[in-house]
């Protein structure tokens, strides 16, 4: 049977062969695919409207702008990408992280473990703040969300995936201070784990001294806002930190984006910034949390009984400065100054790294640990170096741990200088 169609689309050009017509028809899906491919390729390029024109200001003025910023109300969406270069994400992160000391918490909604997830991969966060008393931070997951809500003296954490909640009165809430700074909804973040640009910036600015160069490096557009870029670079050699870039809202001085690039180049280690931001007052209902009838609620008091308080988080290296306080944990000592400082922790364990030899671990586990690290020897004896893109750690066989945001050579030099 002959095809029914005879002349559509070709406007009376009756001489065309059926094959020709078929080719013409198939051009339609091909064109659809082509247009889609072009759209995918071109739209990001077109959306990049270039850097905004803003009056020039000095680094000092910009830092003052940040310090003077009293933006109390804010809501927005953030994206945080972290690539520490850890061999296997969750497991290895846990072994480097302070949480290891705390033991397992009793609730899936306990904040500390959840926030550790931010140490690897890309996450979408939502933040909202309304003055010093009301803050909220949500980590968005597939079909689930983890929220930390502070409303007056109550701090709630809600994990929608397991439908479990965690409740603390202010006294137990950890570092909820910084009143008046506006956007610190993550009051319960472990110390050393800044999660908003503002907090990250505070850490970096604290570190600015003669070892550090701080300049204004042009402008940028972040989440539709015009921003200045503050560029922070270590001056001395040996640090694994290449540069830190902070985009600061030109109007109200709120840091909008934080990028930490390693000196080894490549993808940033930490890239955290707003993708959407609104400086209007968030709805009051945002900060209200009422556990549902079936929600399992864990009180902070109960948790504390279960798990003894470990040393405050200090494994994360933002500037490597946190150890300087010297109050974090007993047995922590800092060698060197500025960016290339190295922390020494005496764990007291004389066996050092559990290895396949020591017999504490099954041989397979020992081998796994060994495969993450490099065996080294020096004046300090022998030990294992664990490397990431930002932090290097040396665990000696006599139980000392040297940690710093420095390259391996600097780390070994520091260890040698101690003997």
């Amino acid at each position, binding site marked *: 049977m002959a095809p029914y169609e005879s002349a559509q689309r070709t406007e009376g050009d009756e001489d065309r062969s059926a094959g020709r017509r078929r080719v013409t028809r198939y051009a339609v899906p091909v064109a659809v695919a082509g247009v889609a491919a072009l759209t995918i390729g071109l739209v990001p390029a077109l959306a990049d409207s270039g850097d905004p024109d803003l009056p020039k200001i000095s680094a000092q003025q910009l830092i003052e702008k940040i310090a003077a910023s009293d933006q109390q109300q804010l809501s927005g969406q953030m994206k945080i990408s972290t690539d520490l270069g850890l061999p296997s994400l969750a497991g290895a992160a846990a072994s480097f992280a302070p949480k290891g000391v705390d033991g397992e918490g009793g609730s899936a909604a306990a904040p500390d473990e959840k926030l550790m997830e931010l140490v690897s991969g890309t996450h979408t966060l939502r933040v909202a703040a309304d003055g010093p008393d009301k803050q909220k931070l949500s980590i968005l997951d597939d079909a689930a969300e983890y929220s930390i809500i502070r409303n007056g003296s109550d701090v709630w954490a809600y994990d929608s995936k397991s*439908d479990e909640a965690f409740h603390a009165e202010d006294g137990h809430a950890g570092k909820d201070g910084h009143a008046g700074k506006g956007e610190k909804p993550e009051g319960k973040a472990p110390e050393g784990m800044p999660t908003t640009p503002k907090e990250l910036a505070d850490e970096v600015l604290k570190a600015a001294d003669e070892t550090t160069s701080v300049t204004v490096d042009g402008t940028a557009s972040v989440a539709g806002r015009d921003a200045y870029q503050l560029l922070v670079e270590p001056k001395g050699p040996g640090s694994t930190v290449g540069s830190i870039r902070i985009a600061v809202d030109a109007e109200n001085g709120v840091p909008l984006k934080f990028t930490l690039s390693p000196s080894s180049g490549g993808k940033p280690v930490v890239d955290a910034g707003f993708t959407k931001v609104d400086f209007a007052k968030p709805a009051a209902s945002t900060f209200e949390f009422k556990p549902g009838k079936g929600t399992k609620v864990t009180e902070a008091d109960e948790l504390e009984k279960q798990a003894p308080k470990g040393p405050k988080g200090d494994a994360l290296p933002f500037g490597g400065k946190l150890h300087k306080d010297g109050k974090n944990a007993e047995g922590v000592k800092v060698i060197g100054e500025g960016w290339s400082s190295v922390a020494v922790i005496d764990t007291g364990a004389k066996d050092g790294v559990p290895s396949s030899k020591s017999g504490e671990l099954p041989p397979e586990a020992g081998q796994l640990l060994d495969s993450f690290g490099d065996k080294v020897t020096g004046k300090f004896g022998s030990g294992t170096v664990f490397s990431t893109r930002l932090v290097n750690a040396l665990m000696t066989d006599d139980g000392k741990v040297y940690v710093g945001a420095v390259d391996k050579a600097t780390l070994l030099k520091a260890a040698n200088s101690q003997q």
Partner: protein
Amino acid sequence: MSQGDITFAGPPGARAAATLGLLRSELGLTFRRLRTLVLLGVLAAVPVLIGVVVRIETGDGSPAGGPGAAGGGGPAFMAQISNNGLFLVFTALAATLPFFLPLTVGVVAGDAVAGEASAGTLRYLLVAPVGRTRLLLVKYASTLAFCLAATLTVAVSGLVTGALLFPAGELTTISGTTIEYSEGLWRALLIALAVAASLAGFAALGLFVSTLTNSGIAAMAGAVGLLVTVQILNTIPQLDAVHPYLFSYHWLSFADLMREPVLWDNLYANLRLQGFYALLFGSAAWARFAGRDISA
């Protein structure tokens, strides 16, 4: 211009009426078929099954899923069902969306053209005063109607079961805020629509497969096979560069409607992706069907 210009020379109003008539008979054919009713019945049973299981498990006051569920096993929203029955709607949709729902859509879409061909009725359909383009559009429209019906079947069954077995009233969004039950119902409807729209791309793909063969069974198997392949590809992390282009990439975005405020980005991205698939495979189906010799 369409086929109608050649095959039917009547006034435009009559042509529209003929198309509507065809659509009505197509819908009647689809929804009166025993197979369709069985598929819908099975879909309706899923929320009942989930609801009864969760009810039995939480009867003693323990959280849903037992101690092992703390890590979030099972489909999304599972843990919240015992809080509010409305969550059974979302859980049931999340449980059926990866395979069950699209499987039924694959059966209906795959059968749309190839089934007529293998039954020998396609040539009679083409005698109707409606062009091939319109016939294809009518077939796609009735497949989309089935997508909506299948989704609503799951949703309504979940709503009724949830209301019978679990508490109603205010519900907690996944962001931790509380919304009224009426607001929750409204969101449940939006979610059902979002899920139905999620199936539009796969429906077009199934229709395209259906135009490739004269065997209804082969077309159904082809469509369902593609679905399974795509869903397997979706789980291979090494292929994550490809994932954003797979039709199921944004399927779970319907859950963003349960955030407060609603996160629209992925929902829009899903609609764009489904629109792209519908255009691409719709036009491919048209290119194939319009130029094909109909011998059956």
